[in-house]
């Protein structure tokens, strides 16, 4: 990155925002319409006709929607959390990727939050889950893990948005100084009158440190709380004490994988290879490798603790998940993508191969989705009373909404790239170093 000038960085980032090819528009419109039809169209139908259009049934009241919810919350974990951790530890390679990563957090939390409403029987009453003064004289039940969720996720979403926006203020100012037309007033207001004085930088970095400090425990708690939606039940297969760390690890795992996938596409599409280099992939894949090993360990612990308990309920759930069609296929595919394929990253050359990175990271995300799906869809159909067991087969509506949510997410990211400096300008400049008379000085 040595031969990049400060000016060039500003130009490149503003270029990603202002120069839009027709292909980009086409992709955006395609994603938007797919999200509209597959997700919101299907959802509208579901609201009209009722939850009955899903494949949910009497023991399996939670299905693919909950799996999607957990999955997207998981994806969110690598943006903000990773960004915050790397910030606190002052890891230099964070700088060119963290902005997009935080955007991923925001968008995936948004997607996840919509799935909460999707899975509700009466989504039009969603506000009843908020604690506010009401003439019905009923508040909310704070013993409910769902209430934990409401609080954790709204806190998480608020904090993530603040974190993302706050870190972008200097860049918004930089964009403000570059753009013309309608963008000018927009970024003028967004940048809050940022000038880059020493005092501003000082307070910014102090506040930013506090945000990072707050975000790290928050992110860990959010996915723990999501896991308690399941773990606080008595249902065999869901009532695992290890779920909290399992979910957090899985979340970082899948989130990192999502970053790898998205970054690989982004750098290619936006021609910003010089900022997001193979070094970044190297580091991220190393993280993936670590997370994969951790995930595999906890997965084994989960299976073993169930197996060791040797109660009929636990055994049946494990059997159903691991050895019975069709879940067995999914289970062993998950083991392949999450535990075995990431081992490729032991080799440095493979860590630096974009192709391998994409394949493995997509695999990991598929695997992590399967993990969440299997947790819901193989535990609930095998509850305590064998008479009431019933398999769960997702309906087309549910599958459509699942696919639609991916388009929705991509659409949000595409819009984000056009509206927001998706590479941190000032921090990449920091990366290059501080210009001294004797050349750049790096931290």
């Amino acid at each position, binding site marked *: 990155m040595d031969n990049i000038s400060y000016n060039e960085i500003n130009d490149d980032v503003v270029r990603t925002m202002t120069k839009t090819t027709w292909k980009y528009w086409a992709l955006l419109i395609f994603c938007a319409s797919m999200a509209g039809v597959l997700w919101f169209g299907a959802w509208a139908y579901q609201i009209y006709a009722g939850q009955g259009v899903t494949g949910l049934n009497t023991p399996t009241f939670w299905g693919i929607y909950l799996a999607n919810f957990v999955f997207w919350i998981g994806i969110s974990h690598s943006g903000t959390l990773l960004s915050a951790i790397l910030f606190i530890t002052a890891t230099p390679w964070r700088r060119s990727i963290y902005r997009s990563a935080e955007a991923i957090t925001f968008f995936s939390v948004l997607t996840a939050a919509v799935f909460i409403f999707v899975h509700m*029987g009466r989504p039009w009453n969603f506000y009843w889950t908020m604690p506010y003064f009401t003439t019905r004289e009923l508040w909310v039940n704070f013993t409910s893990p769902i209430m934990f969720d409401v609080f954790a996720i709204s806190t998480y979403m608020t904090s993530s948005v603040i974190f993302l926006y706050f870190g972008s203020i200097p860049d918004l100012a930089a964009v403000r100084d570059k753009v013309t037309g309608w963008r000018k007033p927009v970024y003028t207001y967004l940048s809050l009158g940022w000038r880059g004085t020493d005092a501003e930088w000082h307070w910014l970095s102090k506040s930013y440190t506090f945000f990072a400090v707050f975000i790290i425990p928050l992110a860990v708690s959010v996915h723990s709380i999501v896991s308690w939606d399941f773990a606080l039940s*008595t249902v065999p297969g869901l009532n695992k004490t290890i779920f909290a760390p399992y979910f957090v690890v899985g979340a970082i795992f899948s989130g990192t994988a999502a970053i790898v996938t998205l970054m690989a596409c982004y750098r290619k599409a936006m021609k910003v290879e010089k900022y997001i280099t193979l070094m970044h992939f190297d580091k991220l894949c190393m993280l993936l490798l670590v997370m994969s090993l951790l995930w595999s360990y906890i997965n084994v612990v989960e299976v073993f603790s169930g197996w060791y308990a040797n109660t009929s309920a636990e055994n049946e759930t494990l059997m159903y998940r691991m050895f019975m069609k069709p879940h067995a296929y999914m289970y062993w595919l998950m083991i392949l993508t999450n535990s075995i394929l990431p081992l490729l990253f032991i080799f440095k050359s493979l860590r630096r191969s974009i192709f391998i990175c994409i394949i493995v990271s997509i695999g990991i995300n598929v695997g992590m989705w399967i993990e969440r799906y299997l947790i819901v869809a193989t535990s609930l159909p095998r509850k305590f009373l064998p008479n*009431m067991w019933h398999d769960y087969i997702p309906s087309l509506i549910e599958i459509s909404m699942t696919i639609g949510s991916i388009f929705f997410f991509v659409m949000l990211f595409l819009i984000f790239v056009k509206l927001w400096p998706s590479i941190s300008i000032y921090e990449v400049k920091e990366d290059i170093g501080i210009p001294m008379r004797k050349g750049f000085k790096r931290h």
Partner: protein
Amino acid sequence: MSGILTRLKDKLASYRVPGYRTKFDYKWTMVVDLDRCNGCEACVVACYAENNLPVVGKRDCDISRRFSWIRIERYVEGTYPDVKVKFIPIMCQHCDAAPCEIGCPVYATYHNQDGLNVQVYNRCVGTFTCATYCTYDVRRFNWFTYKWDAPLEQQLNPDVTVREMGVMEKCTFCIQRIRVAKDTAKDEGRKVQEGDMKTACEQSCPTDAITFGDLNDPHSKVSKLAKSPRRYRLLEELDTDPSVIYLKRVMEDRKGSGHGTSHG
């Protein structure tokens, strides 16, 4: 001042101690004698008639969306010719430590002053948490807006609401009948007594397998039956403290197996 403090202290204590439920006005309890139950399912139809349960049709039955609040489960053990089929009616167990109540974010299900696990349809937003947490799979969800072909809707019981799409429901221990009994008792200035009311399933049961009453009343039939040596509660190891008490079925062990009999 000290009076207020004492009251506050008392209130605090009552909030903190889980044993508050012993102070309920009534402790409605159902005793199901499995030795009497012959699995005829009269209770199931009685429940359909009393509680306006919709008929969902074959397709929805196929994906296990049948509505019956009370169901007969059957367990077959052994192979021909040494076969035993055992029946057990399962309805909402009205657990005192109900997992469902913990799960509901909006208090749509909670414990009322009678020790009943009640479901407030109007409050329900349909998060499914209660049903997922339920260890007895007794909760039913209104997947659609169910219709009754005219003039079948004329049969609908006006004492019980017809539930809207998107809400959870379950056995209420025929709370509308309890309500009537309590109103009558109140008019007469007394507590509800044995024999004032029967639940629909109890009322219909040809073998008298189901008995319903107040466990707080030491002279009630359920109090006596609850002391039976055959008493057990369903999935008691899960510690949900159900209000439904089962009396074990009297049955020979199958030849050459100790399996399937009680282990606890």
